[in-house]
């Protein structure tokens, strides 16, 4: 279908912060008009969006699809299908697949499989160092040419600071953005929970906040010296936020994101060894969670991502420290972020901007806006629908979520990607 009409929806534009009830006309993948019907437009498919919100499609900065390498957990087809049902029109996959995304063949494999799945668009980050081993530079220029939108060493360590400095410098030379998951390996190694009162009580090995702040500080100094463009992902602590805030105040062109679950859960939630709350970076104190919310509110944090990590059931069936970290979170990204709106942390515009316009800008892609002659990536949701998360109805193959049974308001009804209706309910 080439021509699509979305009629009578509540168009929420996070860029202009405007809202109006109107129509969107789509042809050949693009929005060709808003409000006024173009001459001779004949819709092949019409969507009545009365009472529904029309938002730019969501752009998720970090989702692990488990393919290649861990197909027993999930695969590209299953996860992009889940993503599309959650209103996510673009997602970015970090390089820690197996094999690692450090050569064009892997990039091509992922892009091809994603194209075949014909759902959410999948972007990739290339490895910063070969094999993510922190020793040799990856072929960043070639990876960029193959389609990688950035480079990252994921959460794997680059212990040698000189190598890290050269990697940043070389990335700057290639004009490719660094995606940094700040973690000082020596401080976090072996840990599975925030180094605080709950870990102490439960006898779990803690990960101190300094694991994040030492890594951020080191990276910031190297960014200053090398001129690399950088994005900090998955902040977890008040002190980490403070470092980013100060760097931004100094005029550094950096950005940052937080995963949605960090805005709703804290160390308290691992209370009775709940392995669903085993995540990295760990859920920190209530105070840290409040600081992250504050940073989302005042713009120090630029984007909210899912940090999706689907697992097979066995991965969570063990004593806490022996379980694998991560939450299957594509399908809670929008619901949790809308909850921030209901809890009056941010207005709807800001929430949608954090999920679409701003992450698209971080990735440097043409997405995240509702405007004529721009790609028709659109998320249409019912803002009033109340529902409860039931893992048996999740489309992701990973059912590992601590949000089972949570009540949410707002549910995706249609997802349009590249002008194609890929999900509807």
């Amino acid at each position, binding site marked *: 279908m080439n021509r699509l009409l979305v009629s009578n929806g509540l168009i929420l534009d996070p860029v202009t912060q405007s809202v109006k009830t109107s129509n969107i006309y789509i042809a050949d993948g693009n929005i060709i008009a808003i409000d006024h019907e173009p001459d001779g437009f004949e819709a092949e498919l019409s969507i009545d969006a009365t009472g529904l919100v029309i938002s730019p499609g969501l752009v998720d900065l970090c989702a692990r699809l488990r393919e290649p390498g861990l197909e027993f957990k999930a695969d590209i087809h299953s996860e992009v299908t889940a993503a599309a049902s959650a209103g996510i029109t673009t997602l970015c996959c970090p390089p820690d697949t197996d094999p690692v995304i450090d050569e064009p063949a892997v990039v091509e494999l992922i892009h091809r499989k994603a194209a075949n799945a014909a759902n959410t668009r999948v972007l990739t980050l290339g490895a910063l160092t070969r094999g993510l081993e922190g020793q040799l530079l990856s072929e960043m220029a070639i990876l960029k040419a193959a389609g990688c939108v950035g480079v990252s060493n994921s959460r794997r360590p680059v212990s040698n600071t000189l190598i890290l400095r050269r990697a940043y410098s070389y990335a700057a030379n290639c004009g490719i953005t660094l995606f940094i998951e700040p973690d000082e390996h020596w401080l976090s190694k072996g840990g599975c929970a925030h180094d605080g009162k*709950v870990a*102490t009580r439960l*006898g779990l090995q*803690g990960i101190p906040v300094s694991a994040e702040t030492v890594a951020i500080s080191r990276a910031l100094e190297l960014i200053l010296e090398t001129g690399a463009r950088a994005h900090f992902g998955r902040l977890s602590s008040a002190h980490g936020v403070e470092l980013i805030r100060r760097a931004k105040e100094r005029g550094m062109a950096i950005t940052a994101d937080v995963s949605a679950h960090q805005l709703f859960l804290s160390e*308290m939630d691992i209370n009775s060894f709940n392995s669903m709350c085993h995540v990295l970076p760990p859920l920190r104190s209530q105070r840290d969670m409040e600081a992250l919310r504050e940073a989302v509110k005042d713009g120090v944090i630029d984007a909210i991502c899912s940090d999706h990590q689907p697992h097979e059931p066995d991965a969570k069936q*063990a004593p806490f420290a022996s379980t694998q970290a991560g939450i299957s979170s594509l399908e809670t990204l929008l619901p949790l972020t809308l909850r921030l709106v209901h809890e009056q942390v941010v207005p709807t515009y800001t929430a949608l901007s954090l999920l679409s316009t701003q992450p698209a800008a971080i990735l440097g892609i043409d997405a995240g806006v509702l405007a004529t002659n721009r790609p028709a990536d659109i998320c249409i949701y019912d803002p009033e629908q109340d529902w409860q998360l039931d893992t048996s109805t999740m489309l992701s193959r990973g059912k590992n979520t601590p949000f089972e049974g949570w009540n949410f308001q707002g549910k995706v009804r249609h997802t349009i990607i590249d002008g194609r209706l890929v999900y509807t309910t």
Partner: protein
Amino acid sequence: MANKSTRPTDPLIGNDSWNIQLDSNGRLKHFLTIEGLGSEILTSILDTAESFANVNEQRVKKVPLLRGKTIVNLFFEASTRTRTTFELAAKRLSADILNINISTSATTKGESLLDTLQNLQAMLCDMFIVRHSDSGAAHFIAGNVAPHVSVINAGDGRHAHPTQAMLDMFTIRRNKGRDFGGLRVAIVGDLLHSRVARSQIHALNILNTGDVRVIAPKTLLPTNIEDMGVSIYNDLEAGIKDADVIIMLRLQKERMQGAFLPSEHEYYSQYGLTEDRLRAARDDAIVMHPGPINRGVEIESRVADGEHSVILDQVTYGISVRMAVMSMVLGREPEHNATETD
């Protein structure tokens, strides 16, 4: 130097971590952690242990309370003392007991903990006594056994060792009387890695101990331990001043490798309990240790073997306390409105 002592008051903490331990009548179904149990349950364990102490002193040291019950000692971590006292306790209660040392069998063949558990459960046993190197392992197992099976935690990672803590409370009560309100108790050593200390701290606070102190170098103190209701000392002599009870913890030799401490020698020079230093405590202070002791590392031989030491009594009492816990857990009345089936 001492931080303000606070009792844990946060209602959000530990809300359900112990619920799994109690049946619908509020009795012990599992014994996983001291945390969250009421003082009446702890006192009842101590009183029951007292009655078994007499059995243990008789010529025929056996009662038929658990005849026909099958108990499995499931040890994923090496242990001699704890395993042996559980075994003796089970035998004195006339239960059948099976020792399984998993560290050298199933898990090295790649079997998951859950698989191991289900296989053993298929052998129709009534109780698992579990030791595992992961914190939370006993909770995990208790959450996955059939409804009729009980679990006793014999030590999980750094988290809890509740029977050890109870035998320590028993030892204190025998020496210092039933009222803990006026007692000053100092726990000395590697708090960071100690499940024993965590359980002791919970037990002492539940029994309303007047002053619970922890003494350790900063590298061996867990973050925010003051939230568990203790005051912190980094100096041994200041910490044990006027103490009624001094509990020494074992220092593992591998702590030098992780750069927690420079040397055993230095540790002894700062934190070793010598006769000389012991004078800071009350004249009638008792010295305890969960064992095995490192002479000349955390404690001087003259103290370990001296008149203040009750270390060997602790081992003896361990049998009575474990008999008490096992009989309370397995000897429960059936739950009314029970809907449990296998």
